[in-house]
């Protein structure tokens, strides 16, 4: 153990209504250590983080920072005390309409001792210092709204680091970063660790955890279910403590498909990209993997009619398929579970039932009038099918955990039979057990349609797919049958660079 605890939490409790989310959580963070917090969605991680960062009021218990009582009433108070949090939702961490420089120095605009006048030159100078310290290679004059998600994330983290925190909390910081960007983040975390910052790192990604963790704390159902700090760390034990059951990699029985459903020929999705040709078969689950920004979403949107291809043809069940709108794609039996459910999927004002029925109003109505009984029955059936944890189909979406929200998104599109079922990053921000539920459901129901997944995480592809395609630079660069995958070749294809094979 390295020195004393910088940050200590004792018997923390929190309830929302009758629903107890935290049932007495105690943990310590040490200076110069990365403590990884693992927990399934709904375990209470996010609530814990929000209490520590001053967003929620705690229901009971104590917190201490450097042996001083720590009770932030607002996020600003927590930050000033030296407890800085980078939240999972990237857009909470940046102001989209301002430029990068102003974002990096935003917190110096207010609080005691902040100058009254806004001095752009000084802001840019300070921002440059912050950016240099963490090796941020982004144009400081660019507007944040023009940046990619990954760059925004880096800005949000850089902004948090501008405070020189004693305690840094990172909530799933790599969920939208490419591996090069993640490496930059890890290098930075290493440096902070050397400087004696106590880091709480929340993640589902085993590769991150293996790379960073000094200690692992597992949470389950609002309590700490295991603390692992003996080297070498017991990763399986930590996962087991989090899930409460022995996990074993389900061996997939790989299927081959005889009947083609969708055939793509010479499809070009970006200027200068090499054309894509592929065939998706009946009953087959195909995963397309690749780094962030290689065109996975562009391909998904092209198949779904939201984006027009530059060239090429698509054929579905022998007939030409060229959707102009999402509506046409849906009518043709092509469904898409879009990535980033908060932005592209969930209708916040609607409850579970209304969210599930959203794309199928026409099929669920008579003379334009919605058949509510049918709508409710469908929602109930889907909740049952996917094992969505909720009180009833009338629950608000905001009351659900991330994993259950994602299950609702999948349930929405599984309410009717698809010919081609596309899921773009369906496991983003989803805990392992929900991920397994969804994957098992996809495989069990795969007959009669082609299923196409877009995932960045290789593990997710290996766990769910019959066939794995690799994307790089807006095109498909490799194909693997998920039986005896040559991981070295696959990883080389993912990493891109010059292709050695005859092209």
């Amino acid at each position, binding site marked *: 153990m390295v020195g004393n605890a910088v940050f200590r939490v004792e018997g923390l409790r929190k309830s929302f209504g009758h629903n107890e989310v935290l049932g007495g959580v105690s943990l310590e963070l040490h200076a110069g250590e990365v403590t990884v917090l693992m927990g399934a969605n709904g375990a209470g991680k996010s609530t814990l983080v929000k209490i520590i960062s001053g967003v929620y009021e705690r229901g009971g218990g104590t917190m201490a920072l450097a042996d001083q009582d720590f009770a932030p009433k607002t996020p600003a108070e927590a930050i000033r005390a030296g407890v800085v949090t980078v939240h999972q939702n990237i857009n909470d961490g940046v102001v989209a309409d301002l430029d990068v420089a102003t974002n990096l120095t935003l917190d110096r605009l207010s609080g005691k001792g902040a100058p009254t006048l806004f001095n752009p030159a000084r802001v840019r100078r300070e921002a440059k210092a912050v950016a240099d310290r963490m090796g941020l290679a982004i144009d400081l004059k660019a507007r944040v709204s023009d940046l990619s998600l990954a760059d925004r994330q880096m800005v949000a983290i850089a902004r948090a680091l501008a405070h020189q925190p004693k305690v840094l909390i990172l909530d799933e910081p790599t969920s939208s970063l490419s591996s090069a960007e993640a490496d930059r983040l890890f290098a930075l975390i290493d440096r902070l660790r050397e400087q004696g910052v106590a880091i709480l790192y929340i993640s589902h990604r085993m590769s991150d955890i293996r790379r960073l963790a000094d200690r692992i704390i597992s949470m389950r159902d609002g309590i700490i279910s295991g603390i692992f700090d003996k080297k070498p760390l017991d990763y399986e034990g930590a996962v087991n403590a989090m899930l409460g059951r022995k996990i074993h990699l389900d061996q997939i029985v790989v299927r081959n498909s005889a009947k083609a459903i969708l055939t793509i020929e010479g499809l070009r999705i970006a200027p200068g990209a090499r054309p894509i040709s592929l065939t998706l078969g009946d009953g087959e689950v195909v995963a397309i993997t690749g780094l962030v920004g290689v065109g996975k979403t562009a391909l998904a949107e092209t198949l779904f009619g939201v984006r027009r291809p530059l060239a090429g043809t698509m054929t579905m069940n022998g007939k030409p398929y060229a959707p102009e709108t999402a509506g046409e794609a849906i009518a043709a039996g092509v469904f898409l579970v879009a990535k980033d459910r908060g932005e592209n999927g969930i209708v916040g004002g609607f409850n579970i039932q209304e969210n599930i029925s959203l794309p199928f109003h026409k099929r669920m109505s008579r003379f*334009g009038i919605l058949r509510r009984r049918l709508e409710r029955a469908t929602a109930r059936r889907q909740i049952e099918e996917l094992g969505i944890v909720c009180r009833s189909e009338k629950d608000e979406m905001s009351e659900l955990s991330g994993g259950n929200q994602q299950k609702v998104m999948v349930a929405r599109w599984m309410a009717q039979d698809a010919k081609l079922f596309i899921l773009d990053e369906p496991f983003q921000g989803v805990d392992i057990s929900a991920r397994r539920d969804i994957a098992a459901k996809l495989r069990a129901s795969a007959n009669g349609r082609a299923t196409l997944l877009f995932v960045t995480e290789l593990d997710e592809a290996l766990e769910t797919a019959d066939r794995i395609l690799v994307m790089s630079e807006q095109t498909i660069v490799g194909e693997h049958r998920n039986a005896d995958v040559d991981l070295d070749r696959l990883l080389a294809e993912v990493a891109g660079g010059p292709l050695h094979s005859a092209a």
Partner: protein
Amino acid sequence: MTLRDHAIRYGFIVLLFGLVAYFSIAADGFVSPQSAVFIFQSVAITGVLALGVTATLVVGGFDLSIGSVATSAMMAAAYVMVVLEQNALVAVVVCLLIGAIVGLINGWLIVYMRVPDLLATLGMMFLLVGLQRIPTEGRSIATGMTMPDGSVANGKFSDAFLALGRHRFDFFIPNLIPVSVVVLLVLAVLIWFFLEYTRFGRMMYAVGSNERAAELAGAPVKAYKIWAYVISGVFASIGGILLAARLGRGDIASGNNLLLDAVAAALIGYAVLGAAKPNAFGTAVGALFVGILLQGLTMMNAPYYTQDFVKGVVLVIALVFTFALSGRGRR
């Protein structure tokens, strides 16, 4: 449900009944069919406008041009009958067309020209306020008026048209319910049913809550938005028809308060039954609430110039109900 939930859900309805009870005791003659009808009649035109603007609020927009659409329709009706000497049907059709066209233009500006809704409809409001004065060079329209070219307008409001503002249906008591109240009730039921029970209404709410999700669910989002403004424009022009029929002339100075009153009614509607979103039932109750309050105060001899203040107070309280107490968006 906790006490707080009950307060949010039924608070405004209880307040409404409390108000009625109080006025029944305090103000002589408040409890009578005539008084009730008067209240309905006083809110009929603003109520119709408010129901229209509710449609734009549902898709996450706003329509500031409804007041000027209504007055433009009123002036157009008068012009058609008095100057062009046409019959009531032509006047009504022209008014409805004006509403639909303005709605289409609003929708086009917002959806295709990407002008923010408040600004687009604000611009349209100014445009219409000016436009309705051009044909008569800023004069009100009445039979016998002198036109800019020196001729005298000899047409008159047809009896059929005036009946829209003056005829009363028998309802237990002879000559009780004015046409405008019937129009209000019919439109309220129609838009309520449309928004709550049809797939089009449901998708409009989806568009208002998460446009991108609605689009990826296959909805023609742009069309829904434009339709919302067309609904708003047409409802506003119906309000204008009722106004013209009540006044019997094209009065350049009337209808100043229509926009604010209608918007207030729609926003008060957020608080009714804890909906915390635009809804037709709430809008109707919101309009009634204002009507009852003003009628009661008037019967208790409160001076007319306090009316706007009272409306403002009610609106602010309703907004606190909606946004602070119901706690939407906090968790």
